């Protein structure tokens, strides 16, 4: 249980500036998700926290103690590598046991044969074996303990990599997309497992993911990185509902937020000929972007936005309706219950009602500006 403080971390690979000054304060026991587009520097940041890469500038503090110059082995941090990094020559069981053996057994106890004769070795080894079996069971790889990584499927390898971090009780966990290769069911259960573990042990965790659901459901706070900079740091709800930047809004949420180019007006904004009941804190005539999440739209009555259906995507639980607004010929996506869209075909004319209170306004630079819906909603609230 140690807080982590990153202070103005910078890092370049040759001419490529990968991290451009990242500062993060994490509370002890916090679960922080790190999200951002591919190549934005997430892995690099984790590696700097772990001590595997040295930052060009900036400080890293773990539990109040500066560790900037400390070796990885001395930081007592566990990490799940994005590309697994399993020991190819060891079995799954040995892979899982390694971090415990290195930390719980003394050097003489680790000796291959002699070690077995040392006092206490047997008990310690039994302890380790028990812990390994437990972790393997939780990750459902108990039956693979005797295989080597080369004999595992992709998802199986990933679980071993995860297990290797989970067997011990470090000061912090760093996880780099630990579930990306798992199927939905396993992913859900492993997610629960991790959350449960975090709840029990309360170890500070930095969790890199590109899975929206993971970021939203697991974390205390979400950090959104882009282009080597931290754009926003807040609770899942904050970053989702109150993104400070158009890029953040666009990055979170699937399908992507609908963006409409509007002009600021008096107490409302204008989308082509249409006036939308959203008041912008901006000088009239300013070019703005209005963001509207697909779930804020539904098929509406006569006062909705008229649109033509482009195509329909079936997602199982619901449908995505891709349409083209008649005003401004803008593409828009609505997320609807499957039943609601029954009978709609491509090319059909619909009207889309919006929950204008959920609308977000951004200025030309993409910065969020105040918006207040005029409670003159076009359809259901």
């Amino acid at each position: 249980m140690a807080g982590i403080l990153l202070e103005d971390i910078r890092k370049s690979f040759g001419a490529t500036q990968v991290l451009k000054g990242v500062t993060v304060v994490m509370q002890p026991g916090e679960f922080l998700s790190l999200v951002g587009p591919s190549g934005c520097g997430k892995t690099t940041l984790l590696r700097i926290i772990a001590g595997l890469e040295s930052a060009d500038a900036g400080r890293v503090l773990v539990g109040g103690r500066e560790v900037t110059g400390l070796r990885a082995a001395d930081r007592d941090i566990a990490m799940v590598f994005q590309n697994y990094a399993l020991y190819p020559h060891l079995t799954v069981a040995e892979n899982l046991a390694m971090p415990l053996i290195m930390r719980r057994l003394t050097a003489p106890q680790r000796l291959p044969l002699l070690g077995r004769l040392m006092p206490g070795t047997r008990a310690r080894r039994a302890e380790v074996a028990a812990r390994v079996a437990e972790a393997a069971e939780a990750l459902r790889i108990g039956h693979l303990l005797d295989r080597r990584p080369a004999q595992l499927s992709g998802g199986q390898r990933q679980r071993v990599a995860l297990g290797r971090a989970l067997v011990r009780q470090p000061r912090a966990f760093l996880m780099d997309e630990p579930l990306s290769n798992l199927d939905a069911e396993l992913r859900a259960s492993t997610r629960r497992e991790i959350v449960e573990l975090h709840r029990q042990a309360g170890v500070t965790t930095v969790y890199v993911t590109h899975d929206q659901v993971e970021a939203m459901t697991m974390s205390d706070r979400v950090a959104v990185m882009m282009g080597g900079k931290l754009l926003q740091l807040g609770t899942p709800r904050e970053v989702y509902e109150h993104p400070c930047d158009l890029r953040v809004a666009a990055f979170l949420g699937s399908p992507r937020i609908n963006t409409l180019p509007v002009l600021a007006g008096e107490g409302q904004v204008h989308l082509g000929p249409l006036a939308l009941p959203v008041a912008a804190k901006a000088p009239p005539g300013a070019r703005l972007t209005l963001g509207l999440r697909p779930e804020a739209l539904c098929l509406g009555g006569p006062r909705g936005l008229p649109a033509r259906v482009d195509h329909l995507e079936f997602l199982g639980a619901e449908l995505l309706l891709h349409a083209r607004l008649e005003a401004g010929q803008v593409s828009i996506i609505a997320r609807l219950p499957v039943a609601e869209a029954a009978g709609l075909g491509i090319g059909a004319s619909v009207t889309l009602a919006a929950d204008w209170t959920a609308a977000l306004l951004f200025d030309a630079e993409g910065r969020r500006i105040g918006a207040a819906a005029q409670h003159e909603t076009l359809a259901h609230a």
Partner: protein
Amino acid sequence: MRPGPERSLLADLPRLLLLGFGALLVLAPYLWMLSASLKPGGEIFRDSLSLWPERFHALENYGKALREVPLLRFLLNGAVVCLAILALQLLFAVPCAYALAKLRWCGREAMFALVLAGLLIPAHVPALPLYAGFAAAGLLDSYAALVAPFAISVFGIFMFRQAFRSLPDELIQAARMDGMGELGIVWRVVLPNAWPTATAFATFSIVAHWNDLFWPLVVVQSPAMATPALGVLFFRAEEAGNDVGALMAASVIVTAPMVAFFLLAQRRFIQGVATAGLKG
């Protein structure tokens, strides 16, 4: 090369023929050696290409080889010396190779240059000063004298360095995260993942010192310390002609353990593909 179904015998035939032809060339001296060890002296140098003896003389030849000199004792000496040398070489070379391959430190370039320089120095060069040193220390004619000069193998450092460079960095980093010290990484992660190289090196090292003549000739004084190759040499006399049958019999006896060793070691070659635990 490797994927895909196994080829049919017919498709494999060109490969087998080519390799078979080469194998014959490679084997020729051995076939002759083996054949000579079975023949009486009068049959060895003959105008015929027959490999099989007319008069079977193996008992006499091998008997002489084993009787004249304590060849079995020499084999034991050889085993002790070769294994001790290999152990020391690994102990010195592997950590150094790791430092040269994967760590950044000033002096690395210089060290590597020294290693390269060491590669070029033939064993004869340091022999005299070393001999004087061992003599002064009263260590001549001992296992120590046979082993110590080869404790450091520049060849080994060089070979392991090349092999270690191909290991992915993530593997080493994962080990650091697991709490391993650098020495732990060397023995527990890096070396096991360079098994093909390690076996190749072990093979070369053992074979080289098994067959080495020069240094044992210099330091061995009592027959009890002689190495196998030295034993074979006892059957050769330049001034008075060789007893070829016995010489070849001794050679076969001395070569056989090495061939057996290689047959065992080569199975190791197949194992251990370094990147199997990683993706990308």
